[in-house]
């Protein structure tokens, strides 16, 4: 109904007006329809989606690190555990994007952490590149004062929080430093490996040693905390999250007291060296150490480049190197046990066959003279005499006779390989060296490649027979070889871990690696050798009698003194001392191998270190049998 009351309007104009009013009304209806439809679309049709987006907006999920499992010794003594520290954490997304605001926050952070703003930026950038949403721990171990300062001034530090972080705590100081290895943030390369598939940037994993080897047990499962945050990233309340699951503990075969005794005795010489004490029957490593050592806690802080260089430099004898598994040394006379086994098994000689030792050996058709150490002359001797006094001439002769100048060589090479030299031991530590059993094929290949000046000669085999020349082995390999003689031919797989337990100490899994293989050591040969090296330790005139003669537990042990040639500047390098012992000699439980670089005669340095370890193991004191200085020569 059009009821226009104005007298000014003509009917034509009124009609036009009502048309235009209709148009305006139509536009209004259209506009309201559009708005209603859009509202319907947002709230009714896609409400779920937007509800989720709103929740994503307000909920910030933060990964909660899991405490790593402990590392225990064989008696359950804690070797490595965790310490909680407060760490300064930055969520890069919540920092001001750029400009003066960001500069100011960074200046503030710089004052708190002592890092330069540039360094902070680069650390943040580094993490951002790998994982753009991950928080960055800028500093661990914040003092209480700084924590309070940050909390009181929270509004000046958007995106900065103080978080609990776990740090490894080495309860026994430097004891076992070479075993544990360090932990660190998982790297971008590691994250691509299936081994780390369940991890995220920022998680911590074992990067070396036991921590690396048993990481899957130790690392636990990170949880998450869910926090409500406002638009500025300020926390407003906690929501239910997933708690972190602590890692399981790994119980080692290591005996902390034996380890401490070994490290103490070895360290007292102040020379680079290493020792291994191992169960001769099953390969459980009771103690394994290397000198010089280091403080494992150094890796819990950020380490400078010069500090790291000091740990690996040759001038400092590379404290980080684990010589017990990474050394590559000639072994000296301790190798004679292998030569003896090979010669007896290969029928080159019988146990009772007498060989005259005039102090020097000259191969037929060779001008070179191979002498006994210290120019000693032992006269007519059989095999176990030769082992007792460590006659070189006796073994030179065997080395000459065993030489097969082609392929992989003769019986000595064959038995060295059977007993585990020149191959990885399979110990549960990363980065062991396999060493070298020199053979004609090896040397002749080097010669063809012009990497050496001569082909294989009988002299190489003569050198090998007494553990000199190109032979490379580490103490663990020698311990395994001796253990095989002692236990009747079992090549054990050495291991440091014996089981996994829950946080509450409940056993979860045993670790008992099967022996690597069985070798056939003829019983007669075994008896002859065991008698020979037992006499060497326990009978007057034996090479290590002065050290072990008075010991209540019979020891079978062999000294070794390896020549190390000359330095680059031509100065002679002092000999390297070795000692390997099996005890008790009748039925060996334990094998101990010790080497000391520049340690001189085996009887003077390596044997006493062995004695300290056996003292601790058998809980029996050892007093010298002969005043020092009268030690027999080899």
């Amino acid at each position: 109904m059009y009821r226009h009351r104005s007298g000014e309007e003509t009917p034509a104009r009124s009609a036009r007006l009502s048309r235009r009013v209709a148009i305006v009304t139509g536009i209004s209806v259209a506009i309201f329809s559009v708005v209603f439809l859009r509202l319907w679309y947002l709230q009714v049709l896609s409400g779920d989606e937007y509800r989720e987006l709103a929740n994503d907006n307000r909920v910030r999920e933060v990964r909660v690190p899991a405490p790593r499992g402990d590392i225990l010794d064989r008696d359950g003594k804690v070797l490595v555990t965790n310490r909680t520290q407060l760490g300064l954490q930055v969520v890069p997304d919540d920092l001001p994007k750029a400009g003066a605001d960001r500069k100011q926050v960074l200046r503030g952070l710089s004052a708190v952490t002592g890092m330069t703003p540039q360094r902070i930026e680069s650390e943040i950038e580094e993490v951002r590149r790998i994982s753009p949403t991950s928080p960055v721990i800028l500093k661990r171990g914040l003092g209480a004062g700084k924590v309070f300062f940050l909390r009181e001034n929270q509004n000046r530090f958007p995106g900065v929080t103080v978080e609990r972080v776990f740090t490894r705590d080495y309860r026994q100081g430097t004891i076992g430093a070479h075993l544990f290895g360090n932990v660190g943030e998982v790297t971008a390369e590691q994250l691509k490996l299936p081994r780390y598939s369940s991890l995220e940037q920022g998680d911590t994993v074992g990067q070396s040693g036991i921590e690396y080897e048993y990481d899957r047990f130790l690392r636990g499962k990170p949880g998450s905390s869910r926090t409500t945050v406002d638009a500025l990233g300020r926390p407003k309340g906690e929501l239910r999250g997933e708690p972190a699951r602590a890692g399981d503990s790994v119980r080692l075969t290591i005996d902390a007291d034996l380890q401490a005794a070994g490290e103490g005795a070895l360290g007292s010489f102040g020379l680079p060296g290493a020792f291994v004490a191992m169960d001769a029957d099953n390969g459980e490593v009771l103690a394994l150490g290397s000198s010089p050592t280091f403080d494992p806690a150094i890796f819990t802080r950020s380490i400078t480049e010069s500090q790291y260089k000091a740990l690996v430099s040759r001038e400092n004898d590379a404290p980080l190197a684990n010589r017990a598994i990474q050394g590559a040394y000639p072994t000296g006379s301790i190798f004679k046990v292998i030569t003896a086994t090979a010669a007896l098994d290969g029928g080159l000689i019988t146990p009772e066959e007498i060989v005259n030792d005039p102090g020097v050996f000259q191969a037929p058709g060779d001008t070179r003279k191979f002498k006994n150490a210290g120019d000693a002359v032992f006269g007519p001797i059989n095999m176990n005499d030769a082992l007792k006094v460590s006659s070189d001439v006796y073994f030179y002769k065997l080395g000459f006779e065993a030489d097969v100048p082609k392929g992989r060589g003769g019986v000595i090479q064959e038995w060295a390989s059977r007993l585990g030299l020149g191959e990885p031991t399979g110990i549960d530590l990363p980065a062991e060296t396999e060493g070298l059993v020199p053979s004609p094929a090896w040397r002749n290949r080097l010669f063809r490649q012009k990497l050496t000046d001569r082909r294989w000669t009988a002299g190489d085999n003569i050198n090998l027979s007494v553990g000199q020349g190109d032979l490379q082995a580490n103490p663990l390999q020698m311990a395994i070889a001796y253990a095989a003689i002692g236990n009747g031919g079992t090549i054990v797989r050495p291991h440091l871990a014996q089981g996994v337990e829950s946080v509450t100490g409940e056993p979860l899994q045993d670790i008992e690696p099967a022996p690597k293989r069985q070798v056939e050591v003829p019983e007669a040969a075994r008896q002859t050798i065991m008698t020979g090296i037992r006499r060497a330790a326990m009978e007057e005139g034996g090479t290590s009698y002065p050290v072990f003669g008075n010991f209540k537990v019979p020891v079978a042990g062999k000294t070794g003194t390896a020549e190390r040639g000359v330095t680059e500047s031509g100065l002679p390098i002092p000999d390297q001392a070795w000692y390997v012992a099996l005890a008790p000699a009748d039925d060996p439980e334990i094998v101990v191998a010790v080497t000391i670089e520049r340690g001189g005669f085996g009887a003077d340095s390596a044997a006493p270190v062995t004695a300290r370890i056996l003292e601790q193991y058998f809980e029996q004191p050892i007093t010298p049998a002969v005043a020092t200085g009268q030690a027999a020569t080899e």
Partner: protein
Amino acid sequence: MEAARPLTLPGRRIAVGTRFNLAYFDGVMMAAALGLIAFSIFTLAAATADDIPGSPLYFVLRQGIYALIGLVLMFAVARVDYSRFRELRVGIYSIMIASICLVLVFGAAARGSRRWIELPYFRFQPSELAKLLLIVALAAFVIEHRRRGGDWRSTVRILAIGLAPAALVFLQPDLGTALVIGVITLAILFLSGVPWKHFAAIGGAVAAIAAIALVLAPAAGVPILKDYQQERLTSFLNPSDDPTDSSYQLRQSQIAIGAGEKSGRGDQASQTELNFLPEHHTDFIFAVIGERYGFLGAAFVLSLYALLVWRALRLLTFSKNLYGTLIAGGIAAMLMFQVFLNVGMNLGIMPVTGITLPLMSYGGSSVLVTLMAIGLLQSIHIQAQLASRDSRAPNPLLR
């Protein structure tokens, strides 16, 4: 010197002899307006409780006071016969232009633009009042020109009269209000019966100006819009995640509204409570309603606006004279366009222009002016009723 006089003085004079009867009020319109302002206070009470530490009722109390003053003004305006304003058109127009100029010179700056004049207890935004004053004056000018015929010259003049304040407001800069003024001008022109071909020409000119302002001039290195204006006008087409960006606001507002779903999240309205939604008491209050009260609440509010606009449009044909029709048309266009701009922005289908949601957004100038506009509509309604009764009844003097 009529132009310098305060508005109420001539008002009081005009009121003499005007019959005023509450029974002639448009009750539906009144209910819609009261419903909206009540809903505004209700929403502010819930959404702004934590905004100012220590005074949870800060915005509620102020909005309540503005509403009360606004209602008083509404009744005052309603009892005036709007027809008398026609004579005052030059004065009203001059006051309007002067007040906008005053802001340009003395205004308080906020976020890069001068829109307010600081008064004791109150920050007055002349551009809000200017919209209403322009409607009253422009409608009067239109009627003057119509008497001389609907030629090109008068169309251009009316346009000039309407767009002059739009240009001044644009300089503040306040793009949104300038657009509203432009729409008001067009609506009044349209209802006054300007020929279609004039409109076609105007439409072409607007398109050309938009093209020049948004595309050609910036390309030629002569920016006409400020960067942020340009970005606001275009950003709803290409959203980003930068919180300082206006498209971030649009996105957060859509998330808030969508998350409200059918029945709303009440106190779980995290977008509002945790400040993801900027300006939640002013420009984005509709998103707050959408999140807290869901489709039910938001549709209810929209319905109240629809009711209000319907009652205003109804006056176009109901009014006793063309002047009333044009005023009602201008006010309807103003309300309609502001609701569309603001709600559309909240819903992510219109650019960010900083236009308030009438009666809903917190803010004195907006509430007072909108209520005064409704007072004017009531005046038109009352006058129409009175005229209708007069025409039905014989001479009232004979009663």
